[in-house]
């Protein structure tokens, strides 16, 4: 081993004597790393292989007899994107607010404990959120929905008639929003805390109030973090299954009305609900919709990573 601070790469150093243990250990580490690539390739290949039969099959064999494969997928894609964007719309301002509260407003000693509490939200399994959404949230918001359709029904979003059960896409989006809050809060909080203290102190020294300091120093610095947090949250919301499957009362429609009892379902929820009873080419059909979902989340996550990777230190996995 050479005496330099960083060990030089194998290519440029003179070939040192390699012990058996060294060789076995480095090779097994290499194999484990390569296995990740193999697994991901396998996911893509197997999904494509199992989806192909659905793409070439006669649409009349599909359940519900859609006109074509895309006629079957489109309402689901719409529902997935629509519910996820609603969730993002509700959760993003809240996440920024919470992150600011923890990083700049709460008393120092409380801040860490408050962060833990928000992390607890992330630990709750999705099926429990589903149970809560349908058992507690839906009945609780139903009167509000009725009131909204009666008084604001002229807005297309709130078009009547209101669902009698509260199991609408808005309820599902609220549950999704609660579920993606912790991820987004964690990333925003992380960036806000990284704001150079000198910037903040300079702003305060110039006589800025706390909000002006945040607007001038913290928010511009944290913008990439906010964007990537939002994208990662969106990725989570797109792929979330059980909460939507349990809360939503689905129908194959494309509709922007959020309070009615006929709602577009999402890809993931549709798979979870239909898969146990599927047979024949319908299984391939569901796998093909899964492939579509995979591609959508891949695009969203890649954009998020691209934004994050310009600033390395934080990512959704930690």
């Amino acid at each position, binding site marked *: *081993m050479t*005496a330099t601070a*960083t*060990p030089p790469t194998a290519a440029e150093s003179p070939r040192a004597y390699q012990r058996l*243990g*060294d060789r076995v250990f*480095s090779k097994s580490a*290499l194999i*484990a*790393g390569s296995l*990740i*690539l193999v*697994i991901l390739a396998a*996911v893509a290949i197997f*999904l494509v*292989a*199992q989806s192909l039969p659905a793409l070439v099959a006669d649409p009349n064999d599909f359940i519900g007899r859609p006109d074509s494969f895309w006629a079957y997928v489109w309402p689901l894609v719409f529902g997935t994107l629509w519910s996820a964007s609603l969730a993002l719309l509700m959760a993003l301002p*809240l996440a920024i607010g*919470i992150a600011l*509260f923890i990083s700049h*407003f709460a008393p120092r000693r409380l801040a860490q404990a408050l962060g833990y*509490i928000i*992390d*607890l939200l992330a*630990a*709750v*399994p*999705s*099926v*429990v*959120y*589903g149970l*809560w959404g*349908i058992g507690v949230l839906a009945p609780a918001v139903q009167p509000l929905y009725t009131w909204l359709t009666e008084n604001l029904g002229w807005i297309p979003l709130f078009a009547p008639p209101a669902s009698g059960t509260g199991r609408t896409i808005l309820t599902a989006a609220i549950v999704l929003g609660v579920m993606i809050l912790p991820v987004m809060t964690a990333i925003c909080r992380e960036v806000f805390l990284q704001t150079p203290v000198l910037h903040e102190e300079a702003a305060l020294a110039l006589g800025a*109030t*706390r*909000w*002006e300091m945040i607007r001038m120093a913290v928010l511009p610095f944290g913008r990439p973090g906010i964007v990537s947090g939002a994208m*990662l949250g969106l*990725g989570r919301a797109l792929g*979330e*299954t*059980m909460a939507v499957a*349990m809360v939503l009362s689905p129908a194959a429609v494309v509709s922007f009305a959020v309070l009615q009892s006929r709602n577009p379902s999402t890809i*993931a929820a549709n*798979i*979870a609900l239909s*898969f*146990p009873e599927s047979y024949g080419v319908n*299984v391939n059909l*569901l*796998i093909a919709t*899964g492939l579509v*979902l995979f591609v959508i989340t*891949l695009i*969203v*996550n890649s954009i998020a*990573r691209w934004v994050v990777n310009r600033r390395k230190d934080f990512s959704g*996995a*930690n």
Partner: protein
Amino acid sequence: MAIDSTPAPLRTSTPANIHDHGRLNRRTPWTILGLSLAAGFGVAAFLGSVGATDGLSLTLALALGTVLYVVMITLISRQIEGTRQATDRFVTAMVTIAFTVAIIPLISLLFTVVTRGAARFDIQFFSESMRNVVGEGGGAAHAIVGTLLMTGTAAIISIPIGLMTAIYLVEYGRGPLARAITFFVDVMTGIPSIVAGLFAFALFALVFGPGVRMGFAGSIALSVLMIPVVVRSCEEMLRIVPNELREAAYALGVPKWLTVLKVVLPTSIAGITTGIMIAIARVIGETAPLLIVAGFTASMNYDMFNDRMQSLPVFVFTSYANQGVDSQAFLDRAWAGALTLILIVMVLNLTARLIARLFAPTLGR
């Protein structure tokens, strides 16, 4: 209203300067909050007695009180402290409200799960399966066993792969392969859980024919979700091991693999344990992939390679979705299952954080 100094004269054209204006007393915002909430309750009680709402609506009272507080504090601060301070007060109120609003679902969820889950949280729930149970009674023993078997197998597969990948990335990896692995680990974290389930199904359907359902396939699906989380947390922990420790070992003539095994890993073992426990906590609540590849059943099944295997999250879902004649019994079991699940996840998370705090290495800086 309590004021520190005399209110400034009405501003006409002078530029806004904080020191031109008075400051609100420290206690004033709290007084306003108290008064606003009291007013909110008053209005709600009035509406309740008139008959506009059923009884005293607590939600309405709190919402009215909060809105009133935000309006009052902004207006009062604007009169006394000037526009800039008023904006600051407004934002502070909004940010605090955002935090409170986020806490409400958590409290409501925990409260509901504990109160409704307690009904069937008994010995029978943990000792019996659902075999031949149509109404009351029965339990989730088969689901708990299934969850432990499948999550355990997933952990046995994921931990070595994840840990060795992290070691490769930190200790060996250079060049395009390491960059590719880092990138694809990120991609893998974004795989929706249902897609992981479909992958496992596609894989096993090819080998065992269509309609395959087995516990081991569930473990494979969980592994796909677990590996990237393990890699990420282990990598992070290995990176914070100071380089001086490695160099000291090399200087003493210790081979690289023994350096990793005896110096790097023991230093970071607390963090690695924490990361692995949090990864387990994350996959133990996964429902969708297990619903697809492991199926659901009412019977005990210890065989990973044969037949359907129930798991706790799927038990919760199917108890809710396929309610029998006596629906209350099914709902009670679903909530009891949810309570068990939350307890397991919370215990895993808290122990992990405790380990991280107690056994954190002292890096001598």
